[in-house]
């Protein structure tokens, strides 16, 4: 993966992202290795995303690397009307690797074509966010010991949730069974279902969250946003139906883990946080190890 950009989860093969997960395990055991001391990483956030930026910067800092960049477009030359092409070409002169987040879809792919250093896409509009996908795979493998033969439920906004789309597509490389729980208006798009069908895997759709809890291994929760509904009355009807409460987990499998890309609003009640099924904060921490592994392998160190 040396010198190769990661823009979309499809850019890497199954073997390549399993390799990243293996390296991430090494970093989890020892996250403070001074292996990036001679490297400068640029974090260009054309739109703010504090959580993702801090995760990347923590990953770099713990490995002794230097970070340059900006935290939103308002504080950069972009505000003065500089093109993305010029910003990327310039920053590529100052850094060994560029991590970028941008509100426009396709911006990271374009950047990877004009940049002389590799690009890691930290989110391009509603399109891709591959490091989120990698850390989710890592979290699933870590809690279940495998990625094959699992029953995985995705809950909430399955129509617009890019995280759900990338995760489903990545998981079709493994022999998983999918359970999709959403209001009718926010079902998984057929373009994503096509990937499941191509691999001859099974998927089921539900509107009731309680139905899947007894038999799934992973419960992946996502937020439902009011603005996604054409009819506000529909939102009012469903808004409480996709909230996970501690008392709903009474009859779940012993290995069930609850994941969430964070930040949450109210879709997981705080009374779940201290239960053994809650894994979302650990999941966020795994993001640091996975990003360390990704940067180290792109820079040719691991």
């Amino acid at each position, binding site marked *: 993966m040396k010198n190769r950009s990661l823009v979309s989860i499809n850019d890497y093969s199954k073997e390549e992202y399993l390799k990243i997960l293996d390296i991430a395990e090494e970093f989890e055991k020892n996250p403070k290795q001074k292996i990036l001391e001679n490297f400068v990483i640029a974090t260009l956030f054309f739109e703010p995303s504090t959580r993702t930026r801090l995760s990347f910067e923590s990953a770099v800092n713990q490995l002794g690397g230097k970070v340059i960049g900006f935290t939103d477009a308002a504080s950069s030359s972009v505000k003065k009307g500089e*093109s993305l092409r010029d910003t990327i070409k310039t920053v590529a002169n100052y850094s060994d690797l560029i991590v970028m987040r941008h509100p*426009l*879809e*396709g911006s990271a*792919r*374009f950047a990877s074509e004009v940049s002389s250093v590799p690009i890691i896409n930290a989110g*391009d509009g509603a*399109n*891709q966010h591959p490091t989120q996908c990698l850390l989710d795979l890592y979290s699933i493998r870590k809690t279940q010991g495998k990625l094959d033969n699992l029953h995985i439920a995705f809950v909430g906004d399955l129509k617009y949730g890019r995280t759900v789309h990338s995760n489903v597509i990545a998981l079709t490389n493994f022999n998983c069974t999918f359970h999709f729980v959403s209001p009718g208006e926010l079902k998984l798009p057929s373009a994503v279902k096509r990937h499941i069908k191509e691999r001859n895997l099974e998927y089921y759709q539900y509107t009731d969250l309680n139905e899947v809890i007894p038999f799934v291994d992973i419960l992946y929760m996502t937020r439902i946003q009011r603005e996604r509904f054409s009819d506000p009355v529909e939102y009012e009807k469903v808004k409480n139906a996709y909230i996970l409460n501690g008392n709903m987990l009474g009859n779940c499998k012993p290995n069930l883990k609850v994941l969430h890309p964070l930040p949450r609003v109210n879709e997981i009640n705080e009374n779940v946080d201290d239960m053994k099924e809650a894994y979302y904060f650990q999941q966020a921490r795994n993001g640091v190890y996975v990003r360390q592994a990704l940067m180290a392998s792109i820079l040719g160190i691991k």
Partner: protein
Amino acid sequence: MESKKTRKELIVSALENGTVIDHIPSKNVFQVIKMLNLDSFDNQILFGTNLDSRRYGKKGIIKVKNKFFEKEEINKIAIVAPTATLIVIKDFEIIEKKPVEVPEVVDKFIKCINPNCITNHENVPTKFSVIDKDAMKLQCHYCEKTTSKENFIFI
């Protein structure tokens, strides 16, 4: 009937050197003309729509004098008129007659339908892969969204 047929053959045979684009879906003839910028072309051009076709019921045809299309232009024709046949004529003789082929990749001349796509904001030439040749669905190389033939806007 007889006179109609004669007139049709006259048009076809009138070309000494040039190219006939035959079997264009009738409703797409003007689209092809516009897309190839034939409307600003100085050479003699003849075209017809709603002509009788054994294969398709009705068809359109465009004939351009002293013009031999390049690969890039043929790809454009294939995108809006995938049923078209290209007939190359030299000295009143048919030199070549072959159906156009829908390319795997479509470059530069169609706009991405996604308003939030980088190609609609920066000076980035569009690029698509053809994911469905029958329904003519193009996937954007940049934003990964699909643009279908109903939504084609030519750049």
